[in-house]
């Protein structure tokens, strides 16, 4: 008894698959039959998907750079002149107890002087005339002595902040700086992040613009694809009427139009991806230069960068194909349902 129903179900399943193959092939052949109209529609869809995709890509590149910079962002803590090594160590231990501190590096006055000489290209004899230990002595000692001129640089801590909760590193650094300013023997505190905040703000603007543009373009795409589907339904009005007369359901009639919308969306997504590769190829160098101004690496060099770039390109292709296909399908569902319902025998 059980073999008969299963055989019937099997036949039905094969038949349904064959139906979908046939309808998808028909949709493709309809697209091929009107190459100019298809190309124009694909271009419209491709460009509409390209614009937000480019903005999102720029925003992502900047965000990645900012994250890298934030991880290196530090707070410079300058101690009073004349703080001894022991005092400096005590202050550093006190700072390390604070929650937001990730790491702390001590730069002694001598190290600072050496770094300054390297950076400024100062004469070694001139530097040798300083007593590197002077700054750690008391003012009275210095006044009474006949030693070399005093090292004017203070003991400095480079403190890295650690983000907690929903705070960004920048916010954590600002809060930590406020706490450190209250520590005894601390002369001044500088957060290296004002320009980073500006870059972050710019990135946020680009992200919001990309989101808004994506929304507007999605509406535009739904309208454009929907209109194409509506026209396709209109062109096949007679066929739809006859099909309804001999028992075709609206769902059956809609199937080739759904494939049409899906293929247009996927084709537009593919075109957008290709256009994006071209645009990035053309202006990628300029973007890299812009990001380099903020010390952001563009990550376009080396074998690792190549692999990463390929992976990113694959993700972008998947995203564009998915977005295009989904929008095309939704537009086809909405447009074909209304247009087919209007084609009554």
């Amino acid at each position, binding site marked *: 008894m059980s073999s008969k129903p299963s055989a019937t179900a099997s036949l039905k399943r094969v*038949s349904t698959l064959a*139906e979908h193959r046939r309808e998808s092939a028909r949709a493709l052949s309809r697209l091929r039959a009107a190459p100019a109209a298809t190309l124009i529609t694909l271009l419209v869809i491709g460009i509409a998907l390209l614009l937000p995709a480019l903005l999102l890509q720029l925003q992502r590149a900047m965000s990645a750079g900012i994250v890298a910079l934030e991880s290196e962002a530090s707070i410079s803590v300058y101690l009073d002149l004349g703080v001894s090594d022991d005092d400096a160590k005590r202050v550093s231990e006190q700072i390390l107890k604070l929650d937001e501190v990730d790491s702390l590096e001590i730069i002694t006055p001598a190290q600072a002087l050496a770094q300054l000489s390297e950076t400024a290209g100062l004469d070694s004899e001139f530097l040798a005339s300083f007593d590197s230990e002077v700054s750690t002595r008391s003012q009275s000692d210095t006044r009474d002595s006949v030693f070399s001129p005093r090292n004017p640089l203070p003991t400095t801590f480079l403190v890295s902040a650690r983000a907690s909760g929903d705070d960004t590193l920048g916010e954590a650094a600002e809060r930590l700086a406020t706490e450190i300013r209250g520590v005894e023997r601390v002369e001044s505190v500088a957060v290296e992040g004002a320009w980073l905040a500006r870059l972050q703000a710019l990135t946020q603007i680009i992200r919001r613009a990309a989101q808004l543009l994506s929304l507007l373009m999605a509406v535009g795409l739904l309208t454009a694809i929907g209109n194409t589907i509506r026209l396709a339904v209109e062109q096949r009005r007679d066929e739809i009427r*006859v099909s309804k007369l001999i*028992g075709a*359901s*609206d769902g059956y009639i809609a199937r080739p139009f759904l494939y049409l919308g899906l293929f247009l969306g996927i084709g537009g997504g593919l075109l957008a991806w290709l256009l994006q590769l071209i645009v990035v190829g053309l202006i990628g160098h300029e973007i890299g230069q812009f990001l380099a101004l903020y010390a952001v690496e563009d990550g376009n060099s080396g074998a690792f960068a190549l692999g990463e770039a390929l992976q990113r390109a694959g993700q972008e292709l998947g995203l564009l194909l998915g977005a295009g296909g989904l929008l095309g399908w939704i537009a086809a569902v909405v447009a074909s349902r209304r247009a087919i319902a209007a084609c009554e025998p």
Partner: protein
Amino acid sequence: MSMKGAKGYSLIRMITFDRVSKRYPGGQQALANLTFSLARGEFAFVTGHSGAGKSTLLKLVLGIEKPSGGNLVVNGNEMSQISPKMLALHRRQIGTVFQDHQLLNDRSVYDNVALPLEISGLDPREGKRRVRAALDKVGLLSKEKLLPMALSGGEQQRVGIARAVVNTPRIILADEPTGNLDPELSAEIMALFAQFMSVGVSLLVASHDRALIDGLGYRTLTLEEGRLSAEANPHLAGGSANEF
């Protein structure tokens, strides 16, 4: 109501009009208080002048129009309450021959005839066998690859007939099916319909070809201004002719 006739008609009613009326939105009364039924395996002509309501009657059976009043039951479906999904299934059980053929001009003769089978989701191999058999019956197998535009009016009508019968329907509706055919071909088509009748298919044929109707001697419903004005049924014992 007995439906027994000379050919042993089934008692199963395939089409039942019970005081059915149809008034179009413009106010035109197309059918008024129409009552009759068609049994399984029964053949009936519907005749009358132009505008008598023949086409409206067929449209109601097919579900293109809904009755304004009364009850119409076709193949077990109450037509005034049928859902869109059921309506599609309902139409698959009915083979319809249209006066204006309703063929798809961008599809071949074969594809036109195969359309009902495609819609029903039939396996293509089985479908091919059925399509070729149907085309063979109407004498168009050799023209299966042509487009309808390449055929004469009579040939197009025969393609429409092949499409109507290919899905082995329970009911065949035909609106002037022999309008474009010569007498010899008309007789062949009617003989084909008779074959379907003999295997239990009900046929309702709208025609005003009196010679054809009188020659075949099937049950005849005559409409006049939307009303059943006369009914003749030669197959009933001793024959029957009623005027209303």
